[in-house]
């Protein structure tokens, strides 16, 4: 058997390489068999090859560029859909959604505070590439390359429009979620984004029950609401939004020929198209009030965040362990059933006071982090408030470049666009 020989040979070489320098000589010999029994080799399946990871990066870049081309230049919904289908199949179901830029946020953050944390080069690239891209070509990553987004987008069956004020309010959650995820990652507590990601278990078709339940909920939601996770929760989307706002290229519908028909606004399931407006100028007094509110909000956020952080600290594993050890050392040892963690900790014989000290450090980290979290939340809130108060003059329907996912639905529904397409001028140049 050819295959068998190969396996034995590879195994032997492997064993030789691994074991021989250290232990080689004195190995107790296995029994000698009279029958021609061949000692099998321990089953080891090699890990995924390294170059494949770089191939993924390459594909990611290509897909982002392609998606941008399809939405900005080719202006074709169908091509964008095809790209996102590919992403769903490749990044989603084949790669099973790991590692993705959404989770990479935590890797980056944790590696900045903990130099010993294992941070692969690819994680940095995967994190940074879509961000840089969004500065130039908008949220092309969300539109075509993100398997999470692709899944939700393709699931959208019967759209239910949610009012704008609700949309704007809910989109705040993403920033809070981002803040929390960063706080938990910084303190090495838990990777919140990964733990509660709704779509990874769907890509894997298996997972812990709570994850599957979460996934099912979001799938159900996506049937009726356009990209609920992207719009309201995605922490990476929260990062992309401000970058896309100053993007060089952005989706425009028909700036020169807009007939203000409102079709595009209806076509957008993400509420990302602003309608024409002719506001009056606001008075400076109002702005002052808003500014005052803004600053006091920041302070309130900081103060409250401080204590909120202290509460969040109790979700840290070390803190839980310390609480357990404390309960053990205060109560009657016979009656308390210790967890394995506590048993292991006790076995090492460290002073419990040291643990308490460490935990105090963790809690302090959380408290400081909580201040930043509170300020961050109130800062974003304030910006949102100011943004709402702002009234730019607009004559035509225009996509909100922060919210636009480059899905190209608006082109599909635009009568002018249709007309041009039907007259054969397919690849219309953008003004």
């Amino acid at each position, binding site marked *: 058997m050819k295959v068998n020989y190969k396996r034995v040979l590879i195994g032997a070489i492997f064993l030789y390489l691994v074991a021989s320098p250290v232990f080689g*000589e*004195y190995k*107790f*010999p296995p*029994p000698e068999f*009279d029958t021609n029994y061949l000692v099998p080799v321990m089953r080891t399946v090699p890990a995924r090859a390294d170059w494949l990871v770089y191939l993924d990066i390459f594909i990611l870049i290509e897909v982002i560029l392609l998606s941008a081309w399809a939405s900005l230049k080719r202006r074709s919904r169908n091509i964008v859909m095809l790209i996102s289908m590919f992403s769903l199949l490749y990044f989603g179901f084949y790669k099973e959604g790991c590692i993705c830029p959404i989770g990479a946020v935590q890797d980056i953050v944790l590696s900045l505070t903990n130099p010993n944390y294992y941070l692969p080069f690819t994680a940095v690239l995967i994190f940074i590439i879509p961000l840089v891209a969004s500065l130039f070509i908008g949220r092309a990553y969300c539109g075509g390359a993100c398997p999470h987004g692709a899944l939700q987008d393709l699931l959208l069956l019967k759209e239910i429009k949610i009012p704008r004020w609700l949309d704007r309010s809910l989109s705040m959650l993403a920033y809070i979620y981002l803040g929390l995820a960063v706080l938990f990652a910084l303190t090495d507590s838990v990777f919140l984004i990964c733990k509660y990601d709704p779509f990874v278990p769907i890509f894997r078709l298996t997972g812990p029950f709570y994850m599957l339940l979460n996934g099912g909920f979001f799938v159900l939601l996506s049937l009726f609401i356009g990209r609920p996770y992207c719009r309201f929760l995605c922490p990476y989307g929260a990062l992309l939004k401000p970058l896309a706002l100053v993007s060089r290229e952005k989706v425009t519908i028909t700036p020169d020929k807009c007939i203000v028909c409102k079709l595009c606004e209806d076509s957008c399931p993400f509420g990302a198209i602003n309608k024409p407006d002719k506001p009056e100028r606001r008075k400076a007094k109002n702005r002052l009030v808003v500014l005052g509110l803004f600053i006091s909000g920041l302070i309130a956020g900081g103060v409250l965040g401080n204590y909120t952080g202290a509460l969040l600290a109790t979700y840290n*594993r070390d803190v839980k362990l310390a609480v*357990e050890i404390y309960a053990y050392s205060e109560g009657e040892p016979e009656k308390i059933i210790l*967890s394995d*963690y506590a048993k292991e900790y006790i076995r090492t014989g460290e002073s419990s006071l040291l643990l308490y000290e460490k935990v105090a450090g963790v809690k302090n980290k959380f408290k400081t982090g909580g201040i930043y979290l509170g300020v961050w939340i109130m800062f974003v809130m304030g910006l949102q408030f100011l943004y709402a108060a702002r009234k730019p003059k607009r004559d035509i329907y225009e996509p909100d470049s922060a919210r636009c996912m480059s899905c190209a639905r608006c082109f599909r529904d635009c009568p002018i666009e249709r007309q041009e397409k039907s007259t054969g001028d397919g690849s219309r140049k953008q003004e």
Partner: protein
Amino acid sequence: MDRKIIFKNGIWILLVAAGLVGGYFMASSYIPGNTAVNEVKSDGAGNPALPENFKYDMAKLKQYDPRQLLYGEETKIKTGLKEPFGLTVNKKDGRVLVVSTEGMLVCDGAIAGKVAALPVRLEGPGSVSFGFAGELLLAGRDRVNIVSGTIIGFGKKGKGVGEFKYITSVKANAKYIFTADAGNRRVCKFDLKGKYLGQIGRKDKAAGKNFVIPSPHMDMDFDSKGNLWVANAGLLQLEKYSPEGVFVSSWGKHGINIDEFIGCCNPVNFVIDGGDNFITAEKGVLRIKKYDKTGKFLGVVAPPGTFNEKNTSIPLAVDSKNRVYALDTIEKTVRVFSEKGY
């Protein structure tokens, strides 16, 4: 229009039927067993408790009746050797000898002397014992040295005649030297000059016996009548051979009771004391027990928990006063046990 209706109803029926068939297969592939609901209790750290069947309780196996304890620890000798492997007592002068590849330690009773260099270089751990005439038998992994004024060495690595793979014990009586070679799973017989005379085991179909040695533990000793006893560890038995090396009888059985041997391969070490009683050492559940010459369980010498749990063998020796010397190879100490009231 008819076709339309057929379409309309046909598709409905077809699809629901397909679903039902699927469901039927789903249901039929499921044989209702006993479905105890997994009661997930939370421990203090907020983690689900492990189901009980994932626990593998070693504590249960370590239980013993304190009334069965026959011996008490008398003293402990620190060896100062890095990797001691061999222990023997010269029954004539009561000196304890502990051997490691880098040197040996001679103790007078409980008082440790200085670490001295070995008379001969040893390749890897092996075994040590005193011969009938007081000569020192010093074995490395695959070479035996007879030290008595002059040094006679024999053996090399291999599986042929007079070759060794993994010597775990070497003992001599007035006529012969016996070596237990765990690597080759055989006992070899030599004369006092190192001349090969024969072997026991090694799929010796004629003799009808075979040593089952899954791990490098295979001990030997002589009783007062000069019979050779070999620990057939894989069978959890002690086997008796005549002075000439012919199989006579055996005893020992496996089980979880204190008088039985537990594990894949026990006893890992044993020694026969002046009263022809067996002192046996086991790994896994590290304990030393005492049996009489018929294999009747007498009691416990060292209960579980006495030795460092990382030990996988406990070389044993007895002196003329029937004190039991046991070598803790991890903590590098010789522990001396004597009968209570001694």
